[in-house]
C-alpha cells in the first residue's frame, strides 16, 4: 500500500504534469518552425502541385488545363537542352567533387600539422560556393580579360572568353562545383577517424601495401559515408541555380550551354509569365531527383558495407 502510494507520488512528481508542461513548452518553441513549414514550405508546395495543372500567367487567375503542361514537355526543345545540361553537370561534377573531397580527406587524415587550419581553408569554398559573390568572381576569373587568360598569356597561350563560349561555359561551372568539395571532405574526415587503426596495422603485418589497404579497408569501411555524400551531392547538384544565373546573366547562355533545369524553370515562371508550366516543371524535377535517389539506394545494396 505504501509502495503503491510512493509510486504514485513519484509518477506525479516525475512523469506526470511536469512532463506535460515540458511538452507544452517544446511545442511552443517549435511553433515558429511549424508555422514556417506549413506556410512557407508545405503550403506553397501543395499550391504548386495544383498550379502544375493550370495555365497561370501570374496576373490573371489560373485556369485548369488538365495535362497540357506535361504534354508540352515532350516537345519542348529548350527543356530537353536544360535536361542535357543538368545531367552532364551532375554526372561529371559530383564524382569529381567527391574524388577531390576523399583525396584531400585522406591527406589531411595523416596527422598534418596545422590540420584545423587546412580543414577550414578547404571548407571555406563550400560556404561560399553557391553565393552570388563567388559567381561574380568566377565571371571575372574566366572572362576574356580575366585571371586565367592572363596566366595563359604568360606562357604564350591565346585564351578566350571561357564563360562566353558555349563549348567551355559549362566546364567552368563544373570546376566551380568541384571546388566546393569542403563539405563532403569534412564528413569524409570524420568517417576516416572512425576506422580503427588496428585494421591497418594487421594488414601491414600481413604485407598489404598502401593501395591494398585503401581498397580493402578504407573503401569498404567508409562506404556508408561515401554513399551519404553521393546522395546529398547529387540532389544538391540537380538544384544548382545561382552560379548559372549570375554567370550567364539569367539567360543560361551562351547558346543555352549553361541552362540549368532550375534556371529554365525560373525563366518560364518569371520571365515568360508561364507559372503553370513552371510549376509542372518543378514537379518533374522532384520526380527526377526522387528517381536518382531511389536508384542510388538500390545500387547501394551492392557496394555499401555496414559493419553491424
Amino acid at each position: 500500500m505504501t509502495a503503491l502510494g510512493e509510486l504514485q507520488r513519484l509518477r506525479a512528481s516525475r512523469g506526470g504534469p511536469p512532463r506535460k508542461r515540458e511538452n507544452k513548452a517544446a511545442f511552443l518553441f517549435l511553433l515558429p518552425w511549424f508555422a514556417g513549414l506549413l506556410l512557407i514550405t508545405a503550403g506553397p508546395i501543395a499550391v504548386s502541385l495544383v498550379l502544375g495543372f493550370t495555365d497561370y500567367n501570374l496576373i490573371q487567375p489560373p485556369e485548369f488545363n488538365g495535362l497540357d503542361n506535361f504534354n508540352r514537355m515532350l516537345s519542348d526543345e529548350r527543356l530537353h537542352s536544360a535536361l542535357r545540361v543538368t545531367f552532364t553537370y551532375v554526372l561529371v561534377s559530383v564524382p569529381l567533387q567527391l574524388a577531390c573531397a576523399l583525396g584531400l580527406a585522406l591527406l589531411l587524415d595523416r596527422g598534418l600539422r596545422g590540420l584545423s587550419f587546412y580543414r577550414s581553408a578547404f571548407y571555406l569554398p563550400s560556404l561560399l560556393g553557391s553565393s552570388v559573390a563567388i559567381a561574380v568572381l568566377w565571371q571575372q576569373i574566366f572572362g576574356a580579360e580575366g585571371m586565367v587568360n592572363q596566366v595563359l598569356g604568360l606562357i604564350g597561350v591565346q585564351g578566350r572568353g571561357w564563360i562566353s563560349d558555349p563549348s567551355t561555359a559549362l566546364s567552368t561551372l563544373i570546376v566551380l562545383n568541384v571546388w566546393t568539395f569542403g563539405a563532403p571532405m569534412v564528413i569524409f574526415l570524420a568517417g576516416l577517424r572512425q576506422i580503427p587503426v588496428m585494421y591497418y596495422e594487421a594488414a601491414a603485418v600481413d604485407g598489404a601495401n598502401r593501395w591494398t589497404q585503401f581498397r580493402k579497408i578504407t573503401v569498404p569501411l567508409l562506404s556508408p559515408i561515401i554513399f551519404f555524400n553521393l546522395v546529398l551531392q547529387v540532389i544538391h547538384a540537380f538544384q544548382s541555380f545561382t552560379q548559372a544565373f549570375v554567370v550567364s546573366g539569367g539567360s543560361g547562355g551562351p547558346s543555352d550551354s549553361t541552362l540549368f533545369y532550375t534556371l529554365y524553370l525560373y525563366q518560364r515562371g518569371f520571365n515568360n509569365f508561364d507559372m503553370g508550366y513552371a510549376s509542372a516543371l518543378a514537379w518533374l524535377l522532384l520526380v527526377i531527383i526522387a528517381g536518382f535517389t531511389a536508384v542510388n539506394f538500390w545500387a547501394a545494396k551492392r557496394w555499401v558495407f555496414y559493419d553491424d
Partner: protein
Amino acid sequence: MRYTRRSALALAVLSTASAALAACGKDGGNANEELSKDPVTLRFTWWGADARHQRTQQVIDLFQKAHPTITVKGEFKDWNGYWDSLATTVAANDAPDLIQMDELYLASYAERGALLDLGTASKYLTTGDFDPNALATGVVKGKQYALPVGLAAYSVVVNTDLLAQYNIALPDDSKWTWDDLKNLGAQISKASGGKVTGVQSWGFDVGGVNIWARQAGASLYDDNGKVVVPPQALAAYWQYLADLAKDGIAPAPSVTIERASAGLDKSGTATNNSVFGTWWNTQLTSLTKASGKNLKLLKLPGDAQAASPGAYFKPSMFWSVSSRSKHPAEAALFVDFLANSQEAADILLTDRGVPANKKIRAGIAAKLTGTDKAAADYLDAIKVGKPPRVTPKGASNVEAILKRHTEDVLFGRATPQQAAEKFIAELQAEINAAA
C-alpha cells in the same frame, strides 16, 4: 534540404498570389474621383542608373512640396531585376501604383488587365501637348494604357577620335550603305592590328532587327501581332553579323558575347575598343561619359537606299498606373506632373529620352548642351517611318530569343537560315502560348 528552401521564396509568392487573387478580383478606385483629403502614399517604380535615381528623387520632392498630402515612395532597380520583381509584385496583388513601362512588356501587362486605362483619368491627366504619333504608341486594344515619356531613334555611334587616329575620314551618313560600314570597319581593324575593331557586333536588341526588316520593306510583326518577318531578311541580318566576326571587323564571338552581357559601361564603344556601334541616340551621353572620347551620332547605313526608312521613333519608356491602385486619381495627378510640368522636365532633361511632349521638348531645348543636344538634334535630322506595332502579348522575351540565336550563329552552331527559321517559329510559339 536546399530544394525546399530555395524554391520556398518563389512558392511563397505563388501562394500569396493565388490567395490574393481569390480574395480580390476587384479593381482599385476610380481615377476621376475627388482627391483624398487624407494623406496618401503612392509607390513609384522605375529602372535606371544612378543619375536617373537622383533626378527622379528631385522631381518627387518638387511634387510633394506642391501636394503636401501625397507622399511618393520610389522603388528603383536595374533593368533585369526590374521585370522579375514587377511580375512578382503584380502577381501578389502588391503592384506599385506608378510603373515605368517598356514597349516590350506593355501589351503583356495591359492585355491582362494589370494597367489602368489612362483615358479614364482625364480629369487630372492631360495629354494635349503630346505628338499624336507618339501618343499612339501607348495605345493597346484601343485604350491609352501608357503615356510615352520620351522618344529615341536607332543610330550608329562613331568614335571620331579613333577615326582620326587611324586616318580614316568620317563617312557621309546621308548616303552610306551597310557595305560601306563593313569596308570602313575592315580598314580600322587592319590599321589597329586587331587591337581595336572597326565595328561592335550587335544582334542582341530588337531595335537592330526592326531596322533590318524595315529596310527590306518588312516588319517583325503584322498589325495582328503575328510574326511575319521573312526568313530571308533575318538570314541576311545574321549573315552580315557572322561575316563581321569572321573577317575580324567585329571582335571574336566570345568577346562579343561577354561585352553584350556586361552592359553599356563595358561595351566596345564605351571602352574604346570598337569604332562603330549601334545604339539608341539617347545613350550617347552615357557612352560619352564612359569612353571619355568624342562620340558622334550617324544616321543608319542603308536608310538612304531603302524602299522605306528603317529608322523610327521608339518610345524610350512609358508611364503607366496599376489597375489595382487604391489611389488612381492621385497617381494620375503625379503622372501629369511628370509629363506636363516644365519644372520637372528641367530636372529630367533627356535622361528618359527626348520628351514626347512637344511643348516640354521646346521648353528644354535651350537648356540642352553637348551630347544631350546632339541626341535631340538627331531626332530632328532623321527621316522616320511609321513605328512598328507594340510588342505582342507573350513576346516580351523576344530579346532573349534573339540573343540565343545570334550566339548560335556566331559560334557556328546554326546557319543564318536555320537561325532565322527557328527564331520565327519560337517567337510565334511564345505569342500563341500567351493568347
